[in-house]
């Protein structure tokens, strides 16, 4: 299991090979000298946890990002993929997790978007339509070229994306989590299309969190961890365990569950909580879920994308309405209260996307830190600058934010410190229960450890902590209890002595373990 590539056995031909690819963002090394091969007419799957560098590598191959160092060879010749148009010219297309179709336009217009076929009288719609029809037939998905994309099911939309890549003569197709939003039957259609593409000589790079699923379609496996390639092997030599072992590795020590104190009463109690799905209101994103969390306890909720973690936390915090059940805080029903009232009662949420939901970018570090606790430094009508200053300074000290002071601009901080600002802002309200949605997303391992240390400190002082994660390693750190969510329900509950394989098996990520 070293990072060097084994030579090919001659039967399959390498169409693209990337060597010593490194990428740094400031001081953060996203990729460290990674090797990556794509074989003609075969599927290469890239495995790795969030933040392992998968999407960075794919963005480099598709021209979205430029590598800091390293080289890419296509058909044996060195190439530089300077832009996405350059990548397209070289025959490399990427299908992102979030589809990049214009929903208001028809299938035909989407497929030829930006490459419209000209005729003597403007766009040659007839020819575009003929080619689209042909493409859709080849893909066994006879959708009328004039159907607006918004009327198609998600799986069909994905096929349209694939058709668009094919019509641009793509030889290499990168698919980033293509099945995360698909139903089982749609996945089957997608896999049939992939096999068909393979037989036509198209090479596929596949990224997925669903390990089992990926194993059924892949020919080669490459595993990334913390920006380094940890393993490489053809399909016949590997199994699920091999992937999991290489993916999670030994890991960084993120701490252990705090102990040596007695947990208090139940602080947060969820009773049969249901939340409707945002896109399909008749379906439930959270389905009659019940959970009790004691004061001083740390609960980790693990689940794949779409398992309902974010919806659960947002509804508990009051951002989303419940369709059933109730939320009890210290035994009092808070289900009918607004966000502000729940904060007052001691229930706070640190949202998943700190840029979108956590920070006010136009305000300073101090103003962000004090935003949720303005009341504590307001006397009668007016805020007190002196009191606010002490609130801000206390927060900066408590959560260890590295900053020039409260007046600094929020954008001058690193991702980890910005995350600490969001956490510090909510902790400044002196809550009893804190919910954190993926608190470690997009921050480096050192900051991650510090955030976890903060949480265990809080728990020691009687704070009830619920955090979600999509990285198995994080479940095995400070949590007293690990709850695995799948399709809006609790699939399993474990103590702190659970193993990674058990968690992954329960989440539906890997059936055998």
């Amino acid at each position, binding site marked *: 299991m070293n990072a060097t590539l084994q030579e090919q056995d001659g039967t399959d031909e390498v169409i693209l090979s990337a060597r010593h690819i490194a990428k740094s963002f400031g001081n953060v090394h996203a990729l460290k000298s990674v090797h990556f091969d794509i074989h003609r007419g075969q599927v290469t799957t890239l495995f790795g946890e969030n933040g392992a560098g998968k999407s960075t590598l794919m963005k480099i191959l598709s021209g979205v990002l430029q590598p800091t160092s390293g080289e890419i060879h296509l058909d044996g010749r060195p190439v530089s993929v300077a832009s996405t148009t350059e990548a397209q010219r070289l025959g490399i297309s990427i299908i992102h997790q979030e589809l990049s179709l214009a929903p208001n336009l028809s299938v035909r217009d989407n497929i030829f978007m930006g490459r419209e076929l000209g005729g003597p009288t403007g766009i040659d719609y007839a020819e575009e339509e003929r080619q689209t029809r042909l493409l859709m037939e080849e893909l066994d998905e006879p959708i009328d070229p004039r159907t607006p994309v918004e009327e198609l099911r998600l799986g069909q939309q994905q096929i349209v994306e694939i058709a668009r890549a094919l019509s641009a003569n793509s030889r290499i197709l990168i698919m980033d989590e293509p099945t995360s939003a698909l139903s089982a039957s749609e996945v089957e259609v997608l896999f049939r299309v992939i096999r068909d593409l393979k037989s036509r000589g198209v090479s596929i790079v596949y990224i997925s969190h669903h390990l089992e699923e990926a194993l059924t379609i892949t020919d080669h496996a490459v595993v990334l961890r913390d920006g380094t390639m940890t393993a490489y092997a053809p399909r016949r030599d590997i199994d699920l365990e091999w992937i999991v072992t290489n993916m999670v590795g030994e890991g960084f020590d993120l701490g252990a569950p705090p102990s040596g104190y007695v947990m208090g009463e139940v602080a947060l109690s969820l009773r049969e909580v249901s939340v409707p799905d945002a896109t399909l209101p008749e379906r439930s994103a959270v389905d009659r879920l019940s959970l009790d969390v004691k004061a001083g306890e740390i609960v980790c909720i693990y689940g794949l994308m779409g398992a309902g973690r974010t919806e659960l936390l947002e509804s508990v915090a009051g951002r989303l309405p419940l369709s059933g059940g109730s939320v009890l805080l210290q035994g009092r029903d808070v289900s009918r209260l*607004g966000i502000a009232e729940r904060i007052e009662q001691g229930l706070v949420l640190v949202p998943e996307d700190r840029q979108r939901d956590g920070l*006010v970018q136009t305000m300073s570090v101090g*103003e962000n830190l004090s935003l949720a606790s303005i009341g504590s430094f307001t006397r009668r009508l007016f*805020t007190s600058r002196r009191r606010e200053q002490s609130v801000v300074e206390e927060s900066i000290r408590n959560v260890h934010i590295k900053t020039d002071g409260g007046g600094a601009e929020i954008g001058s901080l690193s991702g980890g410190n910005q995350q600490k600002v969001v956490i510090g802002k909510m902790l400044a309200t002196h809550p009893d229960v804190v919910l954190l949605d993926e608190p470690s997303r997009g921050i480096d391992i050192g900051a991650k450890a510090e955030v976890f240390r903060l949480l265990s400190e809080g728990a020691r002082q009687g704070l009830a902590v619920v955090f979600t994660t999509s990285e198995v390693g994080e479940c095995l750190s400070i949590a007293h209890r690990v709850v695995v969510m799948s399709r809006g329900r609790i699939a399993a509950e474990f103590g702190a002595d659970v193993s990674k394989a058990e968690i992954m098996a329960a989440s539906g990520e890997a059936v055998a373990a």
Partner: protein
Amino acid sequence: MTHASKAQRNARPGAGGGFDLGRLLLEGRAFFALIAIILIFSILSPVYFSTNNFLTMSSHVAIFGLLSIGMLLVILTGGIDLSVGSTLGFAGVFAGFLMQGVSFEAFGVVVYPPVWAVVILTCAMGALVGAINGVLIAYFKVPAFVATLGMLYVARGVALLMTDGLTYNNLGGSEALGNTGFDWLGFNRLFGVPVGVLVLAAVAIAAMLALSRTPFGRWVYSTGGNARAAELSGVPVKRVQVSVYVLSGICAAIAGLVLSSQLTSAGPTAGTTYELTAIAGVVIGGAALTGGRGNVRGTLLGAFVIGFLSDGLVIIGVSSYWQTVFTGAVIVLAVLLNSIQYKGRKGRKTSPPAASDDKASSSSSPQRVAA
């Protein structure tokens, strides 16, 4: 635009010291523009630089200033209020209507409310107009542009209906009816200063305090900066949105009272297109139309820049067509400088090398002013 060449001269000397000066000129641009305007017109016209003229011009500015302060609150939350000009006209007519006496036919009496009651009722009317805007925008998710555009038409239409298109000329009231004193709202002077200017000063101080020293102010800035984050931090975002439109409506009503007092008449077409001047004042004052950035001081300067510029052009006898051209150019220039300033801010925080670009753009901006 000769005033800008002064900025250019100032910016030139010493490439080393040029950066700080450029930055200073950029950030204090509304202030420097105002000084430049006063200097230039004082040179061009002997009557411009006199206390009396300043007071007269200030009483013109008072109207725009009042509208601009209301507009600032709305723009800080990321909204826009296109209805203030119509609300101003409507408020004037409404006040005029009350001054003529309200007859209750069922009782066979005509009630002549005293001026203080007229003021309160008119402000309440402005608040109601704003509340309708705010509720439509915050709770019914009508885009602010559309909701207030609709109100622009409705309020103007109601004002025209109330008077049949005519103007109330008799606002003096009479001693016998106990409703004199309307001229104290804008026409008269207190300690030699037009009352309208004092009203503006009072409203400005109140707005300044509210924005910088109260939780409400913080809520306004955070709603405009990132409404989602503000909501999750417990800010009552919807109530904040309704409040700023209500305040904007009240400001427009006050401006309507001041204007009809200044003119001693209330016409239904008063204040047409004033909403655009108000927006211009806010923008020249450095506020971002995307919300979250801006302050009362800048907005007041913006209102004075526009007022002093257009009055100055009148005094030196430039045709009103050219005045329009100048005003438009100043507004575009202001927005251009805003984007340079905010881009510079962003550039500085992302990476150190960007600081040199920032430097270049800010020190080159005075030249752009001159262009």
